[in-house]
């Protein structure tokens, strides 16, 4: 018995030692995921970013992650665990981790934190986000050309500004080619629930939409669209495998350039808190290959993408009216970022009442 205890103790000591030794050699960069790293959507996109980061800076850093972390008290423990285990830079990749990130950050002033899509910053908490709506404008334009009925179904998650921006941008894009275009919105009230998302997709198709787009994270709606023989847009990751003949394009989150840039700054000792909101031109989002569409539609999409990248086209540029018909932006005026970040109204033409 004594021998066993001794063996256990030795193992423990060796383990503890080896963990410490490697921590001194390389900086640790850590990630907290809300979903599974193979969800085919949001979390997978972050995990691909992590893997590319690890490859790019292989000799200087190692990475770790915790997946399927529920928002709430469990998130606080998960983030604290990472901070205590020697992570120097921690990315928390869900809006719902905001308060927990700020709380833990206050306890660990020497650790740097980056919170995705939130709005609360601190000297050691930066926030980062992506102009997903640029991609949604392009999707909307494609939908405007491809839909024969002129009605798209939109599976939305939560009525927060980021999602409202997406709905508005999609409609503006569609109306730029088909002024009578309509969208129907279903609020799934979840980011990740294959069952609910599939139900929402079916309900929308039964209501007569002939094109589907989603702001939720699983491939379920894409699969439903494929079964019912209509076209759809992927979200967060390229979902072409779920619908080889269904996906028109997908808004692909490509976090790697941002992760590499920020980690490099951290290694150089130049990390500072920022509130970053990059777009297509910075490579933080890309469009999956334009497929399953005629060449002229593809050419139009590519041209719009170029215009957005060059800054020639800004999706939220007047004349745009709000849903109730009052003027929001006069002709030629572009919205400022502040209004977009707090967006809680629809533009004219959205056939839905925004949950308030």
């Amino acid at each position: 018995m004594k021998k066993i205890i001794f063996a256990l103790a030795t193992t423990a000591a060796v383990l503890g030692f080896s963990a410490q030794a490697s921590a001194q050699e390389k900086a640790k960069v850590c990630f907290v995921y809300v979903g599974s790293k193979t969800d085919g959507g949001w979390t997978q996109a972050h995990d691909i970013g992590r893997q590319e980061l690890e490859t790019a800076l292989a000799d200087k850093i190692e990475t770790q992650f915790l997946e399927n972390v529920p928002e709430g008290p469990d998130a606080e423990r998960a983030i604290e665990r990472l901070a205590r285990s020697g992570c120097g830079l921690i990315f928390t990749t869900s809006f719902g981790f905001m308060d927990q990130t700020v709380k833990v950050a206050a306890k660990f002033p020497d650790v740097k934190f980056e919170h995705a899509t939130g709005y609360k910053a601190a000297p050691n908490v930066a926030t980062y986000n992506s102009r997903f709506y640029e991609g949604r404008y392009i999707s909307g334009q494609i939908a405007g050309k491809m839909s024969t009925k002129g009605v798209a179904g939109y599976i939305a998650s939560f009525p927060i500004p980021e999602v409202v921006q997406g709905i508005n941008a999609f409609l503006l894009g569609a109306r730029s080619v088909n002024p009578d275009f309509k969208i129907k919105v279903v609020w799934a009230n979840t980011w990740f629930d294959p069952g609910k998302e599939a139900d929402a997709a079916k309900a929308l198709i039964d209501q007569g939409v002939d094109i589907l787009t989603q702001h939720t994270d699983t491939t379920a709606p894409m699969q439903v669209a494929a079964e019912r023989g209509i076209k759809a847009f992927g979200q967060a990751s390229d979902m072409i495998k779920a619908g080889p003949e269904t996906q028109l394009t997908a808004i692909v989150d490509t976090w790697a350039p941002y992760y590499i840039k920020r980690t490099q700054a951290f290694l150089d000792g130049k990390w500072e808190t920022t509130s970053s909101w990059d777009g297509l031109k910075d490579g933080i989002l890309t469009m999956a290959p334009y497929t399953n569409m005629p060449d002229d539609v593809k050419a139009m999409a590519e041209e719009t993408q170029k215009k957005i990248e060059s800054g020639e086209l800004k999706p939220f540029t007047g004349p745009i009216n709000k849903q109730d018909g009052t003027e929001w932006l006069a002709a030629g005026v572009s919205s400022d970022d502040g209004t977009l970040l707090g967006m809680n109204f629809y533009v004219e033409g959205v056939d839905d009442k925004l949950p308030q």
Partner: protein
Amino acid sequence: MRIELEKRPKISTLFSILSPFIALILTIIAGAIMFMLLGKNPLDALYSFFVEPLLEVWSLHELAIKAAPLILIAVGLSVCYRSNNWNIGAEGQFIMGAIAGSILPVVFYEWHSPLVLPLMLLMGMLGGALYAGIPAFLKAHLNTNEILTSLMLVYVAQLFLDWLVRGPWRNPDGMNFPETRTFAAEAILPELLSSGRTHWGFVFAILAAILVWFMMRYTLKGLEISVLGQSERAGRFAGFSSRKMIWFSMMLSGACAGLAGIAEVSGAIQQLRPVISPGYGFTAIIVAFLGRLNPLGIIAAGLVLALTYLGGEAAQLSIGVSEKVTRVFQGLLLFFVLSCDTLIHYKIRVIWSKLGGTAVDGGH
């Protein structure tokens, strides 16, 4: 060939006590085999799963936070189960307690007073007790099966909470996210020590366990619970009312679950969200049985179950296995506890139908 369970004439006291420990050891062995199949060193894996979370002070705090609701709910359930009332709906009572307790900080958020917190706790207990009163009423007066009614009321409670946080109680400053206002400082259950996040919920759990243990052992009520649980008829001859016992045990366990709910919300979450419990009310059923329905045993069992949650996270980081391992360990533990218990009461008899089958049967 056929396998039969045969009731043992006498139950071994020694093995009744040892059974949970044997189950724990078997779980660890099965876990080691699982880690080996996953290609991990089983010693490293078990170390990071069961030992690592116990080595640091902050982690012990997290253990207490996770164990507190499990212990508190399980203690209440033990009274129910001992008296032969099968309350499966502690999860719903937990949620209703949390909702009732949150009325003050969410609806009357402008009322600041040191009375807020004690009132919240009382309302939490009341909310849970009243909600458990529904299946109690149905059983006592309409002879309804409380297993079904209490379980189904869980879903009602979950949907009610969901509706509240998306509708009337939604935080006006919360960017439309489905959550309520965050509680003001006087509505938050204070932390116990400066070294970590453990709040008073853990104290409530331990106190409840000691009080129930005392009641079961030294009071007439305790005797009444055991007698009615073992034989309702005998209880009636002794002058005990089984109808009153239904009310008493269900309301008591409802109050415990409700207190756990408001303590979790006020101490750890500090607002209501669509989901406030990772299934504490159901996991507590495992805890109650692992603790052999003994309040002091339940304290230990609650800590072990809490350790599986923390261990899953630690193992994910240090050896890179999926967090699903936690679920697997909880399942293994329950499986071995139940099978050990079965083997205490029964012995296995293998009956060979071809060879000497008649001889064995002839033994009867």
